[in-house]
């Protein structure tokens, strides 16, 4: 029953990742990301209660604060400052992206049926689900043109990793997790800074125009 609950949360995270693909508005994407992080933190918290480990409480709290509030807030700020057009340009249109995603899902679910996870596993289905989320995050990074969406893709990917780390293996050592959070914050800040500068300097928000700087 508990594993069902964890799996359900995992499934919601996956659904939100897919919703991320369908969105063509930046505000919406960021909101979706915040909700997704909220679900991840719930999942970590419940595993913490289940295995009564203090580390997981802390990391759940950190997820909640950093990913649900601070990063989305920073991103909202960035968008407001730069008055980005709301449409997201994509190399692959949404219907086709969804087709690719269904292929990804089938692939990961088929693949993980042949992988035998040793040790104590809380929820078996979490593994393919988080693997799909990781691939979807990577796909967002590949297929979108704007740096800010690529950043969201990266954050989605990171959520997937977080999910798989906590629910398949009872979490990583706390120090590692805090390190990861720190990385994410720094990464997000750096990215918003860079985005800001790109916007300021070349009046365009396209990552494709970065290739103009090549030699």
């Amino acid at each position, binding site marked *: 029953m508990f594993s069902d609950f964890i799996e359900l949360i995992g499934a919601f995270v996956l659904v939100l990742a897919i919703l991320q693909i369908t969105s063509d508005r930046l505000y919406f994407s960021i909101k979706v990301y915040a909700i997704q992080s909220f679900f991840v933190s719930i999942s970590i918290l419940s595993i913490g209660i289940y295995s009564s480990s203090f580390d997981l409480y802390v990391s759940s709290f950190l997820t909640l604060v950093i990913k649900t509030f601070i990063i989305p807030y920073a991103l909202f700020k960035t968008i407001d400052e730069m008055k980005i057009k709301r449409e997201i340009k994509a190399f692959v249109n949404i*219907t*086709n992206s969804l087709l690719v995603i269904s292929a990804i899902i*089938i692939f990961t*679910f*088929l693949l993980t*049926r*042949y992988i035998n996870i040793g040790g104590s596993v809380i929820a078996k289905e979490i593994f393919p689900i988080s693997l799909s989320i990781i691939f979807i995050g990577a796909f967002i990074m590949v297929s979108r043109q704007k740096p800010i969406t690529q950043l969201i893709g990266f954050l989605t990917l990171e959520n997937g990793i977080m999910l798989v780390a906590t629910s398949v293996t009872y979490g990583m050592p706390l120090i590692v997790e805090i390190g990861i959070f720190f990385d994410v914050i720094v990464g997000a800040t750096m990215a918003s800074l860079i985005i800001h500068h790109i916007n300021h300097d070349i009046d365009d928000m396209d990552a494709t125009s970065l290739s103009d700087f090549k030699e």
Partner: protein
Amino acid sequence: MLIYIFLMVLPMLFFLKPKATFIVQTFSSLVLLFFSAVLLLKHEYISISMFHSSLPYLDFSIKLDSLSLLFVMIISTISLGVSTYSLNYVYDEDYHHKRLFAFIYTAFIASLLFVVTSFNAISFLIFWEIMSTLSFFLVIYNYENEENRQGGFLYIFMTHLGTAFIMVAFILMYLKTGSFSFENWVHVGLDDSTKFWVFLCVLIGFGTKAGMFPLHVWLPKAHPVAPSNVSALMSGVMIKTAIYMMIRFYFYFLSDIPWWYGFIVLLLGSLSALFGVMYALAQHDLKRLLAYHSIENIGIILMGLGSAMLFNSNHMPLLASFGLLAAIFHTYNHAIFKSLLFLGSGATFLKTHTKDMEKYGGLIKLMPYTALFFIIGSISISALPPFNGFVSEWLTYQSLLLNNKIDINIIHIFVPLFASMLALTGAFAAACFVKVIGISFLGSPRSDGAKNANEVGKFMVWGMGFLAALCVVFGLFPHIVIALVAPITSLLLGVDVSSSTSSHLFMISTPNFSFGHLSTLGLSMGFAVGIFMLYILIKKFGNTKTRMCSTWGCGQLNNDASNQYTASGFSQPIRKIFAFFYHPKEKIYPTSRKKKYFFPILEYKAHSHDGVESVYNLVLKVFVKSSAYLINLIENGSIHIYLLYILIASIAFLVYAVKGGIN
């Protein structure tokens, strides 16, 4: 038995009187149909070895077992309808050389019958080639058109490519069994690699003839250009002979096939189904649209066949018989409704003199019978209840669902995917036929040709009516077909399918009754009662008056036919959504020389390209170029070199002969 052969060839003798030919063909088909049904139901099978020639391997043995008998039934059913139709059609269309046409036509039907009854590889191949060649002649019958010749040549090329693969399969079988008789091939034990090559060659060889997905390019080019009655025969029956041989090979000759053979067939089937229907949607040439639908339906048949193969390789004969039932049922159904639709398209073509749907419109009032039969055929092909297409598609769904009982991961995940592809196919088919009926039969006429159309001759109506009636009958009473298929499943799988699927009266069910069941008769009774009640309700409490008025055109008075939606417009959303698939080329350009602000008449052209075709073109280009280069190298025009070839050849033969002598 001799009666059979006599009936098959009888109509050919009357070729000097074309009208008599068609009449005799009709009657002989009727008798054949009747006899085959009786033999099939009484489980009496005949075999005969007619003619042993002095040439090695060549003997014409004929055997009518249950599978052959059913296909004889399919052929004679269709030929009954089509021959009746031809009595008017050939005269109204006024073909030149009617005697020649009649002769080729009847010979073609006879060759079809011989193909499905031959029980020897060599004689099979001979009749197969006769069939292909005669149909080629029929395709290019109106050879004045450039389009016809191109379609015909593509067809003859592809069909021979297929025959080459068939020959390889036959030779492989011969090498393993030492015989060309089908009798000795039954459940032959082959080693794995040979089995694979036989499977592959059969799939490619007969898949080409059937119009399976990557090998279908000839079909949408050849079928539309043939005379309509011939298109009906080709689409309805000829491509089914390939299905016949596939069933023969995969269930009768090969045994213990690995599961992924079935999976490949299932995959190709679902791809052809989706591919066919999506291109059909983009067409506005009625006959080409129907030709693409043939690809779709062959896909659905292959899906049934594939799931039956999956069951068979997992030793579930009962479920395999169910899958086979789905496939054969759909084969019969497709033969009926596809030839009906081709005949209908022939009728509209005859009266409006164009194949372009955009120039039809309003034909339902001018050609009521043709329109009615066409609508029945359309409902059947869109797999809508309560007609026959629905029943076989339902069976296909159920057999796909039951595939989950096989304990293989890939099947578990992919089979529901195939089912949803089938769902998309069915929905697109419905959309496509809404387009066909809506554009060509409803609304107001879009051209002078359509304005002046009138009902076709009575034999044409009868021919179409017969097939339409069969659509309804097979839909409401599927037990008829199940009873006919049952001997086949007991021959091939050792299980009688009728005992498990039709145990309840007027109700068909899956082998496990509680899993799912269907009664089309009950459904249509429900419809009838419901409509009757509504009618009574309105009669009692409502207003039954009707006033006629002209169509509202947003205040515009000159409400002419050009205001109506067009066929290209209808499919535009789907073309746009699946742009990655169609690669549509759309262009809007003015036809008059006026400037932009003076409202020039604009013309819109949309064209979508068959992706597979361009791949073929590329391959062919490379092939032709390289072979031309080779030919140039060998035949360089110098007589000395040619003499040298002769010299080398004779020396080689000498060496070979001496070597043989030593041995």
